[in-house]
């Protein structure tokens, strides 16, 4: 039995030094909700070193290996330094 992954749109956001590395701050991507952030990024930006980055899905920190689920926004969060 084959499993059909629905392909939907998500906004990939990048900030600070990650945006500088990637050369974009926002990009529309296709993803499947059972895909993990780690797999999504490996597929979309394989050159990006994600160690040291956190990932947020719809504004909540998310496990790199947990399915993204139904979401409209995924963000790469380099080490924060406000204040």
């Amino acid at each position: 039995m084959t499993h059909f992954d629905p392909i939907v749109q998500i906004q990939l956001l990048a900030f600070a030094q990650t945006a500088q590395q990637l050369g974009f701050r926002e990009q529309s991507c296709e993803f499947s909700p059972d895909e993990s952030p780690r797999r999504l990024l490996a597929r979309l930006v394989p050159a990006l070193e994600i160690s040291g980055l956190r990932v947020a899905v719809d504004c909540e920190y998310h496990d790199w290996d947990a399915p993204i689920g139904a979401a409209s926004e995924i963000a790469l969060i380099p080490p924060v330094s406000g204040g």
Partner: protein
Amino acid sequence: MLTKHVAFTTAPIVLPPVELPSLEIGACVEFQGIVREIEGTELLSGLHYEAYEVMAVRHLHRLFDEIANREACASVTFIHRLGWVPVQETSLFLRVLAAHRGPALRFCAEAIDRMKADVPIWKVARA
């Protein structure tokens, strides 16, 4: 019940006048984070700040509520500047009002610590 004001601005921060929500406020603690000339080993003329604003606002509200569960405070005002901030100007303003100084001071310290750990705001050194 904690009253929360959270704002980001690209203009210089103007301190809002202190408004006391009740006759029971006995302590007003204010913190200003100011851009320094030296950051690590670099000599700077300023810093560029950016934020993932919608996420930052959500997390700030949540962490303020969490701290207020332990530290009884009446009101918190948080203003963070974004964009270019020259040396000697304020990048962060925080004001906490409470009945007593202990909770107000601890709220202030913990709010900044947690913001610096988890809230998506970045300083970027630039030419």
